[in-house]
């Protein structure tokens, strides 16, 4: 049975092989990267944030208290601080998301929450089958009715209806797993 997130973090201070860190990285690096990319608009800076998050995680693993927050929340709070630092450092560089100086802390928190949400929704859609993603794309983003989708794709209307319902049920389940209300 795979160790829980909290167990991995608990073992980090004694992890000489790097196995626990590698497992934690595989569970969270992708979503942290997506979050940082959305918040910073810069892949290179986002990669640095991911590295820094895991460096802090292993250095401060003994400070982690599972009764106060999930590992996911803990890692995101580290990432949030690193993103704020990165935005401040990058404030003078063109092409990077707006300076943290121009936002109040509450606005900044909202921006970062939105960045997390954007990544989660995109990641959830990416986990759907191509057929399910397609009907959502055509109906929601393309503004087509199910009848129009059936005509455009040359498939029976009944199939499009049931496919759309399956697609939304799957999407809801995936978002529930991600704790997205």
């Amino acid at each position, binding site marked *: 049975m795979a160790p829980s997130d909290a167990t991995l973090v608990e073992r980090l201070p004694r992890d000489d092989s790097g196995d626990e860190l590698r497992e934690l990285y595989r569970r969270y690096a992708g979503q942290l990267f*997506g979050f940082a*990319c959305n918040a910073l608009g810069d892949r290179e800076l986002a990669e640095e944030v991911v590295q820094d998050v895991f460096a802090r995680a292993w250095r401060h693993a003994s400070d982690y208290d599972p009764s106060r927050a999930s590992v996911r929340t803990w890692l995101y709070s580290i990432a949030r601080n690193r993103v704020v630092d990165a935005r401040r450092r990058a404030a003078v560089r063109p092409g990077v998301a707006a300076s943290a100086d121009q936002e109040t802390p509450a606005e900044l928190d909202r921006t970062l929450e939105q960045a997390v949400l954007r990544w989660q929704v995109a990641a959830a859609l990416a986990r759907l089958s191509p057929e399910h993603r397609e009907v959502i794309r055509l109906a*929601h983003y393309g503004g087509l009715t199910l*009848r129009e989708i059936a005509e455009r794709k040359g498939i029976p209307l009944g199939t499009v209806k049931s496919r759309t*319902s399956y697609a939304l049920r799957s999407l809801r389940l995936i978002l529930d797993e991600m704790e997205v209300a």
Partner: protein
Amino acid sequence: MGGCSTHGPLIGGYALGALEPEEMEEMGRHVAVCSQCGPEAQRMEGLPWLLDRIAPSDVPPPTLSPKVEDAVLDRFARERREEGAGGASTRRAGRSTRRPALLGGAGGRLARRPLAVAAACVVALAVALAVILPLGGDEGGSPAYASVSLDARAGGAGSATAWLGQVPAGTRIRLEARGLPTGSEYEVWCIRTDGRWVSGGTFWADRNGSTEAELTAAVRAGSYHRMVVTRRPDGAGEGERGPAVLDGELRY
């Protein structure tokens, strides 16, 4: 297909508003009374709002280069080697690290065994040399290490230590500063041997005057010999340099 047998297949189209007008009306009446479709419609009603958070081009989300995992694991392995040699106690002086299994445990054993202390010193010296001298070998980017202690200029306050490592983008600077006057923005500079100042970026000190920052400067190991921290004047323009507050010579 879950949901009720008559209207279950319509629930997805209803949630997205993608049914024909008459079907939308019929479903609206149905979900109000159906014990299966009603709760399901409620569960789905937030989905259009969530889908509006992104553009279709956001799917799939950006993926992380495998090089980042290598970099994380390399960094971890390096720090573990340094800790194993007792380097962490000096490298992170003044910082509250809690590693009983690695530091306290090893210290207790060594104190009881003088021979082990001597052996550990030899290992520590070897690792310290490996850390201070540029590394060759097969590690990506052949990281070169140096450290520098930065002291306050006359009449100033504060001190800092920086550890330097080679990365493809230049030199990664990990800076820990203490005792800096708060409320100012500071900038780190690497002074090249040809006299050019290369900025590593800016940072703020916290309310205790401390900071822990990671910065990158576009310089290579060996091409610079001094580091300076300046205080940026209020309203300073890009490229404008403030007065130096800390400086130090590099030890390669």
